[in-house]
Structures are given as structure tokens and as C-alpha cells.
């Protein structure tokens, strides 16, 4: 029985009452146990997070493997908190940007900039602020860590939601207006459901990056401020300091299990549930499944318990909730009557604001920085840029052929794809110590051998996007190519590469963005007291952070942001546009 339920989708057997009842009870029990466990764990972790820091001495990070489950829980809680914050931010920020043309003029470019700032760059600046908000409480540094994760997910979620709001199908928009939905009803009935698939996908992508940053942000040292929040990240930091390779192994194991559980309990159910929000009217070929969701959906007790909650949510979404902003928000077609004079005033305001900020920055930077600093940062930036480009090229040469080979074999792809996605989600920085240990051990040149660490975690995006592309490649094209016996190199050039190109570009964009972010933790590493630096902008920012030299941290971050934006504008966007234009099938 158990095996059958786990094996695949089992249709409810309504007419076989006793058996159905037994199944239902069994399901109810599992869900109940899971529910209570999650509740208790979340409660205890939350209590610790707000607890006072005893006598300025922070809890010592232990290296005993027995503390790891607790640490993993704390790490996971940070992820969840950041996820909720990102969702809230997304709903508010993207909605305002989509509903007001003037707000859009400011908010969307701002989002573009925020997105290109390296995530760990935010950390150096915000940690002091958050610590001062809640002095002598663990909450300050906790919030700083959560904020770092937030910055790794919020921007692209907001972008996705904004895009969805702007592309609501015209017929659904007209139907909603003809039913005279209030803004609140429209939001929950039309806009959120329509945006859901994109939002879920982006949340999942962000989440993968999130693990990386949660690990990186738990053990922070900015100048004299040293913080180690109980968590897997701090555990690894301590293990590095003590040169304890076994502890690193335990941490890797703990993280693996955590990610797998997180995936099963949160993301799979979400994705399976989110499938109904697909806008296409055709039935999907493969329906995402989730064991937990099946349990919840089919357990009678759970369903009965869930019904009032569902009803309450439903009623809340149906409520008209007329707000004073009503007329402004409910308009899908945005008011055309916005006057020109007001536009000009608005523009002038933006430009004045920008000018003021630039001037202030120039003042601040001019006092602390010289031209030599700029040239040093630029030189380091060039080194990191070279690394990113070379690594993307190498990863492409390795993973594109493998991805195609895997993607064309559905059976293999089915097994490899989840693995590739898991590897993309796994925080690669946990593996750094192993690599560093080897580099130290065999006395390798850090300038060269530290470089691959940058792309260790993000290369998988290339792999799984190429696999997805090859899997989606229409089989009639493949058959046509086979029947014309198109030979080797021509097959790649004329058939396969154009077919997977849009997927590859998507993967490569993510991989390159991730590599820039990772450079801050991968270009300068340590093993016990041994310090290795590969040079480059990441190392520059890391060193300045350690020294607490804020003007130079800012300079490094600014240079990196400029490089990331330039790379996006000059390489990735044109490639993406080209892929869209040339390889679309319709």
C-alpha cells in the first residue's frame, strides 16, 4: 500500500470505502505529524532569533555534528523569512510600478540597478544599520542576514510580477472590468493568479541563489564587527578556521538533506499546486506532482480541517474592500488624462533628485578616494571580467554537448535534470574549503586555481537549461534532420544549436550573474591561518570589507555593478533579443 502511494498517482477509490478510509487516515497522520513538527521547530527557532545577546558574547559555534540539525533549521528559517519579505515587497513594489506610469519611470530602472549590485555588497552596508536597530539582541544581525537573502530574490520576483501585470491578457482584463471587480478583487482574482507561474519559477530560481547567500551571510566580519549567527554557514566558517575537513563534510551532508526536505515540503507542493494557474488552455503533457500535495488533497481529515481556511481565504479575496485608491488601482488601462505639465514637473523632480544624490556621492567619494583607487578597482574589475568570460566559455564547451546528449535521451534526462537543479541550488561555498584544502596541499597557483570556484555553483544553470532546451526540441525537426542525413558539424550548426540557443542564453545569463556574485567569496579564501587571494574585484571588495573601509567597499561595488550592467546590456540582452527573433518557431 505504502509503496503504491509513493510510486505514483493513485486514483481515489471512492467505492472501496474501508480501504479508502484507511488510506485517508494514514495520510492524515503523516500530514499532521509534519505540520506539528514544522510548527514546533519554527516556534523554537523564532524564539532564539529574538533572544537577547547574552553579555555581548555570542553563542559559541560548536563543531559537533549533533548541533547541525538545529543550525540547519535556523538557516532554513532565515530563508523562509526572506521569502515572505520578498513576496510582500514584490506585491507592493511591482503593483505600484505597473499601475502608475510616473512611478514606473523611477521604480523599474531602480530595480535594474538594484539587481546588478552584488548581493554581498548590500550586507557590508546594512549589517551595521540593522545591528544598531536592535542593539544587544540577536535580531539585528538576523535581520541583516535575512536582508541579504532578500536582496538575492526580491528583484527578479518583482520584475516577473511587474511583467505579468503588464501582460494580463486583454480578454481577461475586459471580462474583469465588465464584472466590475474592485481593485482588491481584481488583484486576487486576476492579477496574482495570472502572475503565479512566473512568480513561482522566479522564486525557485532565487531560492537556489538564496542558499548561497544565507551561508555567506551568517558569518560576517565588517571591520571590528564580528558576527557568527548559529547556522550552517557559521559552522563552516568555524570549520575553516580550525582546519577541520571532517566538519566541512558534515555541513555538506546537513545542507544536502536540508535542501532535499525543503524541496519536498515547500517547493514541490507549490509547483504542483501552481500548475493550475497556467494560462494556456491546453492540458499539459507532464503534470508536476508532489507527494505532500497529494497527501493534503486526498486526506479527508486534512481536507476537512483545511476547508474553513480555504473558505476564509476565498471570502477575503471576494470582499470588495473598496479603498480610497480604488479608481486609481482598478484601472487596467492607465489614465490617459495625465497631463503633460505634470509629466515635465515629475521629470524635473527626478533629475534634480539624481543630481543631488550624485553630488553628495561625489563629495563623499572625493574626500576619501583618489584616482589611483579608481584605477586599481578598474584593473581588478578587468581581471574578474576576464575570469567570468573565460569560465563561461569553458562551462559552455563542457556542458552544452553533455546537456544536448542528455536532453535527447528522455530517460536519462528524467534522472539527470533533478540532479542538475539540485546542484544549482546547493550552496557551492560549502565546497570551497575542500578546494582550498587541495590548493594548499598541492601548492597550486591561486590566481588560476581559485577561478573555477566562481562558477562552481552556477555552471549548472547552463546544464539544466540546455537539457530543457534539448528535451523541448521538436522531434519532427530531429526526424527531418535524420532523414536528410545531415552530417556531424552541420547537424550542430543548423539543427541543434539554433534549437537550444534561447535556453542556453537564459542559462548563461544566470550563470554569469551568479559568477560575479560568487567572486566576492571565491577570489579571497582562507584555510585556517593560510590566506589565498586570486586578485580581482571580488578579492578587492572582500579585503576592504574585512578592513571596514567603507568608501572602498562602495567603490568596488559600484565598479562591479557597472561591469555587470555593461555586460548585460552589451552582450546578454542583444543575444537574448537575437535568440527570440531568429529561433522562434511561430
Amino acid at each position, binding site marked *: 500500500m505504502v509503496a503504491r502511494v509513493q510510486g505514483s498517482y493513485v486514483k481515489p477509490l471512492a467505492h472501496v470505502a474501508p480501504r479508502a478510509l484507511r488510506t485517508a487516515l494514514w495520510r492524515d497522520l503523516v500530514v499532521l505529524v509534519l505540520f506539528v513538527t514544522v510548527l514546533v521547530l519554527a516556534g523554537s527557532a523564532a524564539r532564539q532569533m529574538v533572544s537577547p545577546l547574552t553579555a555581548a558574547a555570542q553563542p559559541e559555534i560548536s563543531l559537533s555534528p549533533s548541533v547541525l540539525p538545529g543550525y540547519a533549521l535556523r538557516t532554513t528559517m532565515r530563508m523562509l523569512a526572506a521569502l515572505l519579505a520578498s513576496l510582500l515587497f514584490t506585491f507592493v513594489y511591482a503593483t505600484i510600478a505597473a499601475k502608475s506610469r510616473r512611478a514606473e519611470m523611477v521604480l523599474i530602472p531602480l530595480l535594474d540597478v538594484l539587481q546588478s549590485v552584488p548581493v554581498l555588497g548590500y550586507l557590508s552596508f546594512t549589517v551595521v544599520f540593522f545591528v544598531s536597530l536592535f542593539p544587544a539582541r540577536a535580531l539585528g544581525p538576523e535581520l541583516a542576514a535575512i536582508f541579504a537573502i532578500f536582496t538575492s530574490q526580491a528583484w527578479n520576483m518583482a520584475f516577473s510580477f511587474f511583467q505579468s501585470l503588464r501582460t494580463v491578457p486583454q480578454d481577461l482584463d475586459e*471580462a474583469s*472590468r*465588465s*464584472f466590475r471587480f474592485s481593485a482588491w478583487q481584481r488583484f486576487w482574482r486576476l492579477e496574482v493568479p495570472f502572475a503565479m507561474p512566473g512568480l513561482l519559477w522566479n522564486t525557485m530560481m532565487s531560492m537556489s541563489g538564496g542558499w548561497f547567500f544565507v551561508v555567506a551571510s551568517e558569518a560576517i566580519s565588517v571591520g571590528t564587527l564580528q558576527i557568527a549567527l548559529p547556522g550552517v554557514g557559521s559552522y563552516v566558517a568555524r570549520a575553516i578556521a580550525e582546519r577541520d575537513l571532517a566538519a566541512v563534510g558534515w555541513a555538506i551532508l546537513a545542507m544536502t538533506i536540508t535542501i532535499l526536505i525543503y524541496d519536498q515540503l515547500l517547493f514541490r507542493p507549490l509547483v504542483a499546486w501552481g500548475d493550475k494557474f*497556467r494560462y494556456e*488552455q491546453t492540458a499539459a503533457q507532464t503534470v508536476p506532482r508532489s507527494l505532500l500535495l497529494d497527501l493534503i488533497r486526498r486526506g479527508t481529515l486534512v481536507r476537512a480541517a483545511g476547508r474553513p481556511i480555504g473558505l476564509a481565504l*476565498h*471570502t477575503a479575496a471576494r470582499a470588495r474592500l473598496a479603498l480610497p485608491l480604488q479608481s486609481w488601482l482598478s484601472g487596467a488601462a492607465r489614465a490617459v488624462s495625465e497631463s503633460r505639465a505634470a509629466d515635465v514637473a515629475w521629470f524635473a523632480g527626478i533629475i534634480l533628485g539624481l543630481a543631488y544624490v550624485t553630488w553628495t556621492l561625489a563629495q563623499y567619494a572625493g574626500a576619501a578616494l583618489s584616482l589611483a583607487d579608481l584605477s586599481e578597482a578598474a584593473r581588478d574589475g578587468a581581471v574578474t571580467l576576464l575570469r567570468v568570460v573565460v569560465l563561461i566559455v569553458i562551462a559552455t564547451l563542457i556542458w552544452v554537448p553533455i546537456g544536448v546528449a542528455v536532453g535527447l535521451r528522455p530517460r536519462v534526462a528524467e534522472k539527470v535534470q533533478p540532479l542538475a537543479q539540485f546542484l544549482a541550488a546547493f550552496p557551492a561555498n560549502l565546497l570551497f574549503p575542500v578546494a582550498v584544502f587541495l590548493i594548499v596541499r598541492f601548492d597550486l597557483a591561486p590566481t588560476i586555481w581559485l577561478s573555477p570556484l566562481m562558477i562552481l555553483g552556477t555552471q549548472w544553470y547552463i546544464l539544466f537549461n540546455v537539457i530543457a532546451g534539448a528535451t523541448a526540441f521538436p522531434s519532427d525537426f530531429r526526424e527531418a534532420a535524420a532523414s536528410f542525413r545531415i552530417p556531424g558539424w552541420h547537424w550542430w550548426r543548423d539543427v541543434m544549436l539554433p534549437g537550444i540557443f534561447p535556453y542556453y542564453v537564459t542559462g548563461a545569463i544566470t550563470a554569469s550573474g551568479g559568477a560575479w556574485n560568487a567572486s566576492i567569496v571565491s577570489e579571497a579564501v582562507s584555510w585556517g591561518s593560510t590566506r589565498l587571494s586570486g586578485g580581482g574585484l571580488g578579492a578587492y571588495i572582500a579585503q576592504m570589507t574585512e578592513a571596514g573601509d567603507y568608501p572602498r567597499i562602495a567603490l568596488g561595488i559600484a565598479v562591479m555593478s557597472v561591469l555587470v550592467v555593461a555586460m548585460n546590456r552589451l552582450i546578454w540582452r542583444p543575444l537574448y533579443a537575437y535568440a527570440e527573433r531568429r529561433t522562434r518557431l511561430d
Partner: protein
Amino acid sequence: MLAPLHNAVVDLAGISMVFKRPSGEPLPVLENVDLALRDGEILGLLGRSGSGKSTLLRIAGGLIKPTGGSVTYRGAPLTGPAEGIAVVFQTFALFPWLTVLQNVVAGLDALRLPLALAEQRAQAAIDLIGLDGFQSAYPRELSGGMRQRVGFARALVTEPTVLLMDEPFSALDVLTAETLRTDFLDLWIERKLPTRSVLIVTHNVEEAVLMCDRVLLLASNPGHIAAEIPIALPHPRNRLDAEFRAIVDEIYSVLTARAVASLGAAKAAHGGLAQALPAATVNQMNGLIEKLSAPPFGGAAELHALASALSFEVDDLFPVAEALHMLEFAELKGTTLKLSAAGRILADADIDHRKRLFKEHLLRFVPLTAHICRVLGERADHRAPRVRFEIELEDHLTRHDAMQTLRVATAWGRYAELFAYDDKTGMLSAVPAE
């Protein structure tokens, strides 16, 4: 229009609508349209695509604000979607994430009913429209016909006084459309609907005659009402009745007369360069010629017979018929399309011969293609950018028409091997004579 105002449920007076093109220039789609939807009638809006009939329906529903004129609903100005007006959409516009029942309940969201009452009313509408048993299905599980039934149930659940239908059957296959149409008419005739008036947009002539008490013919550029045709036949109507046929023919002859008149007028002006070419492909033209020359037509056919033989709607048939008329392979006259001598030869010719004949007629009767050939011939490299002709055409035509005309001329010219076109470089080039 002399419609007595007192019984008009929705009254549109002097409506004009100008959209803004992305380039900023104005695009007029409706000009000075008067329309009164009377109590107790089904009013049809019939016209070809681009005549602004869907826009007119949206204006009547308060979904779009007209740039000029006034909309009155039950004696008061209409400022937006109002209670008592419901819309059925061509694309169904169902929320894919809601079940059938939830979709119908959503129609009542604005009324602040308790959920239980709303579900009860939704259930009644679902029963009425023949969807019982599908309450918990999601739209993607349903066939097109069932989806549109949900669309109807969702509109009717609000007990609307006015029902606006935007080509409600055109996304369905012929049989399904017929079933749904008949079911709707039955409910209407038996007075089972709370609705007092229906406005239906269509480009299917028979559908209009089958359903409506009155049909307004809309003509394009910009949209205006070209004719009003009352249909006093009793329900249920029979498509084979002589009277039914007579009204269908009347509508076709109005449409034909307008088409022929505008073709002639355009040809006379600006040496023919101002002539917008109908969006017909060479394959469609060849197909229609073959259909016409074969039995049962034997060279000439009534338009309505041709339309039903090909299950074509006005939008499918007229562009091809106009193209044949323009190239003098056939003649549009009254309610018939008749092959010319050249058309008969074309019907029996092989591919090379067809191409030669097509080329001859293209050069003789479509001044634009002759013009393109001349320009290409005069240039040293026999090449010219497409944009050059686009700009020239825009002196006489709207941008949309200019683009379409050039696209059609390019396709025809390529088929006739008059010139070649490279989409990457946007260059037209002369085909060297063999």
C-alpha cells in the same frame, strides 16, 4: 436614425473613436456612428475586420470611452461597465485557474452576495445553459463549445438587461457553433432569459440573418454604418427559405457593391498607387478559381453558396474575391462571382503557364507592381530598399494599409517571378530575364 428614443435601452449617438498609433499619429476607427439598441430585439453588427464593430460593442458596454459622442444606458449617461450589461467574448475569457462554478460565481463578485446565494444562482445559470455535471471542471478540460457555454452562463448569471456578444461563435467549429446558436435562440424565443436586448457582432452573414431582428452593416476606413436591414422573419428561421435567401443575397449585394465601388475609386486615383491590395494569397486565389470552375458552379457562383461551400465567413471570402476581381480573373457583380475568360484559362493551365498569365495580369492591372518593376529596372544595380516604396505608399494610404499592400505586392510579385525580396536586408531586386 429614426429609432424612437424612448424604447432604446442603450443609445449611442454621434460616436467617433480615434486610437493613437504607436508612432503617435491618430487612427480613426469609428466616425459619427448612431446606434440604438431597442427593447426586445437582437441587433446584429455585421462588417469586415477593421470596420470597428468590436470597438463599437465595447463602447456600448462601457469598456472603452469613445473620443466623441454620447452613450446613454436606460436614460442615463454610461461612464463605465454598468450593472445589467454583460459581455460574452469571442475568446471566452474564462479564468483558467477557476473551475466552471467558480468562474460563474466570479460574475457575481461585484454584487456582494453571500457565497451560498451566489453559488445557488450560479448553479441555476449552469443548469440553464446545459453545463450541469461540469461544475468542478477547469476550463482547460473542456471543449471549445463547453467553454463558451461557461462564458454564456457567466454572463447570464448576473441577469443582465443587455447582453453584448462579440463574435461568440467564431472561435468554434461549424457544427458546435450551430448547436450553441440554436440553444441560445431557443432560450431567447421561449423567454427563458432575463435579458431584454442583445447586441451581437459577427462577420458571418447567415448567422446574422438567422439570429437578428435588425442588422447594421458597417463599412471601414473609418467605420460607419453603411446600411440597416430589418429582418422580420418569424423564429425559428430556415436557411433554405426563399425569404431567408433573399435577405442573405441583399446583404451580399450591399457588401459587393461597396467592395467594387471602393476598388474602382482607388484605381482611378493617383495612377492606381493609392490602391490598397486585399490580403489574399496566390494559393487562395488559385483555390477559389478551381472551386469556381468545377461543378456545381461551372464558372459562376452566388457568394452565399460559395461561402457555405467553403465554410468561409465574409472576412475570408471577400479579400480573395476582390483580388480576383482586381486582377480581372473574375468579376464581382451583384451577388455573384463570375470567372472571366482569363480566369477560365488559368483554371486549366499548368504551373508555368499560370505564372506567365498571372505575371501579365499583375503588370497590367496592379499599377504598384508595374511601378516597382520600373524603379528596379531604372537602378544601376536593379535593387531598391522596400522602405522606399513604403514611404511612397504612405502618401496615399494609411500606414497599416501601406504595409499590407506592400506585403501583398511582394508576395504576388515573387510568385510571378517579377522581383525577389530579401527579408534580412529589406531589399527588393529585379529577377533577371531568362
